[in-house]
C-alpha cells in the first residue's frame, strides 16, 4: 500500500467567507471552513442545508458567488488558476457514482490517467489494478458498470478517483444511493483510506462513520455552519438547539 505524503504546514482545504446564490436563493451564507492535511472532516446537516454545495465549490463544480477557497495553498477561486490541473489532484466521489457506462471498469480507471496525467497505458493499467485490489474488486476489470451492484460501482468510483493519485478526496453523500446492505462495503473502503492518512472531506448521513473515523464534525443548517468540533462531542453533547433537533431525528 502506497504512503500518501502530505504537507502538514498548509491546510488541505481552506474556505473563507464563502457565499453562493442560485438565482435569488442564497444557499451558502458566509462559510469559513478548513480541513488540515491528513484529516477526515465530515459534514452533516438536513437536506438543503448547503453541505453538498459547499463540497462542490471546493473543486468549483459549483461557481462560488463570493469568498475565497484555497486547496493546499493554491487559490481555487482565482479566475486564472489552472482548474483542470488542480482538479486532477482532488479526487471526487459522487452520490450517483457517475461511472462512464460506455467504458469497462479498467477503461474507467485509466482514461483520465492517460489523457490528463499523460501516463503510459501500461503504467495506468498497473495503477488501476493496484487500486482495484485496494477496493476489493480486482476481478472485475473487464466488466461494464451496468453489470455491477451499486456498492461495487461506488467502490469502482473510489478506485477511479484514487487512480489519479490525488492529494485529497471529496465524498458527496457516497452511500446515500445504496441499498442498506451495500453501505458497509463502501464505508470499509473509506475507513481504510482514512487510516492510510488520506485527507478527506465527507458529506454524509452516516453518523457512525463520522463518529468512528472523523477527526472533525461540521453541522450545517440553512447555509451556515451551526456547530463544529470533535465528532463524539458534537454527536453526544450538541450545544446548539438546531443540532439537537437534527440529531434527535436521525440518531
Amino acid at each position, binding site marked *: 500500500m502506497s504512503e500518501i505524503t502530505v504537507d502538514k504546514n498548509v491546510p488541505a482545504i481552506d474556505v473563507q467567507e464563502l457565499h453562493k446564490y442560485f438565482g435569488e436563493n442564497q444557499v451558502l451564507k458566509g462559510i469559513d471552513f478548513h480541513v488540515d492535511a491528513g484529516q477526515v472532516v465530515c459534514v452533516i446537516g438536513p437536506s438543503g442545508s448547503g453541505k453538498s454545495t459547499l463540497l462542490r465549490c471546493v473543486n468549483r463544480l459549483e461557481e462560488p458567488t463570493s469568498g475565497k477557497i484555497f486547496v493546499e495553498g493554491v487559490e481555487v477561486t482565482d479566475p486564472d488558476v489552472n482548474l483542470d490541473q488542480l482538479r486532477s*489532484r482532488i479526487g471526487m466521489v459522487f452520490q450517483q457514482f457517475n461511472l462512464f457506462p460506455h467504458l469497462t471498469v479498467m477503461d474507467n480507471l485509466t482514461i483520465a490517467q492517460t*489523457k490528463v496525467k499523460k501516463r503510459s497505458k501500461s503504467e495506468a493499467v498497473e495503477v488501476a489494478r493496484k487500486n482495484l485490489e485496494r477496493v476489493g474488486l480486482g476481478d472485475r476489470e473487464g466488466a461494464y458498470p451496468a453489470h455491477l451492484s451499486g456498492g461495487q460501482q461506488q467502490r469502482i468510483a473510489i478506485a477511479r478517483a484514487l487512480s489519479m493519485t490525488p492529494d485529497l478526496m471529496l465524498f458527496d453523500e457516497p452511500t446515500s444511493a445504496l441499498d442498506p446492505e451495500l453501505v458497509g462495503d463502501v464505508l470499509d473502503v473509506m475507513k481504510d483510506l482514512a487510516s492510510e492518512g488520506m485527507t478527506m472531506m465527507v458529506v454524509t448521513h452516516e453518523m457512525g462513520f463520522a463518529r468512528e473515523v472523523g477527526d472533525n464534525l461540521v453541522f450545517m443548517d440553512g447555509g451556515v455552519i451551526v456547530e463544529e468540533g470533535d465528532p463524539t462531542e458534537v454527536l453526544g453533547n450538541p450545544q446548539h438547539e438546531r443540532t439537537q433537533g437534527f440529531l434527535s431525528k436521525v440518531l
Partner: protein
Amino acid sequence: MAMSPRQRSKVSRGVQYGVLVVLFIAIAFTADWSTLREQFFNGDILPELFPTIFTTALKNTLLYTSCAFAFGLVLGLILALMRLSSVGPYRWISTTFVEFFRGVPALIVFIGFYYGLPVAFPGRVLPGGTLGVVTVALGLVGAAYMAETIRAGIQAVPKGQMEAARSLGMTHSRAMFSIVVPQAFRIILPPLTNELILLTKDSSLVYVIGLSLADSELTDFGRRNLSQYVNLTPLFAVALSYLIITVPLSIVVRRMEARADKAR
C-alpha cells in the same frame, strides 16, 4: 348476451382478421394481374436492366449517400456543439443554419447549388464533379436534421457524466469527446439511421442537375429506362433496389441497439 372481457377481445380480434382477409381477397380478384405483370414485372425487359442497375445505378446511390452522410454527420456534430456553446454567435449561426436547411426542400438546395454556385463564384467549381455537388448539397440538408438529433442526444446524457469527467481534470472538450459524445451517439443511433434512410431516398433528387450515364443513380436510371421501354418494370426494379439498401440498415440498427442494451 354477457361476455367476459377476455371473450369480448377475442371476438373483436376475430372481426379484425375477417375484415383484413376480405380486403385482400377483394383486391386480388379486382386487380388486372396479367397487365400488372406485363407493366411492372416484364420478363423481357427485366434482364436488360442487369448488370447496369447494380454496377452503376445502385453503386452511385450508395456512393452519393455515404459521402453526403459522412459530410453531414461531421457538420451536424459541429453544429450541435455550436448550438450548445456558451458563445452567443456560435449559437445564432447554428440556429440560423438549421432553420434554413430544415425549412427548404432538398430539391431547391440541389438546384441552388448547381446553378447558384457558378454565379456566386464565377470560374470556380466544387471539386469532385457530381459527387462533390451531391456530397455538399445533400450533406448540408442532412447536417441540419442531424444537428438537432445530436444535440438532443448530448443533452440526454446525464449531467453527472460531464461533472465526473471534469472532476478528474479533463478539459471541457476532452470530456465532451471522450465521455459525453460517445454516449450521445449510442442514444441517437436509431434516429440517426432513419436519417441515413431518408438521405438514401433524397439522393434521388440529384437527377435535377442532369447526370451523365456514368453518374446515373437508381432513380435517374429508372427514369431513363422508363422512357426507353415505355414500361414501369425499370421503376419497380429500382424500388426493390432501394429496399436492398434500407432493409439491411434497419436490421443492423436493431442488432446494435440490442448490443447497447446489454452494455447499459
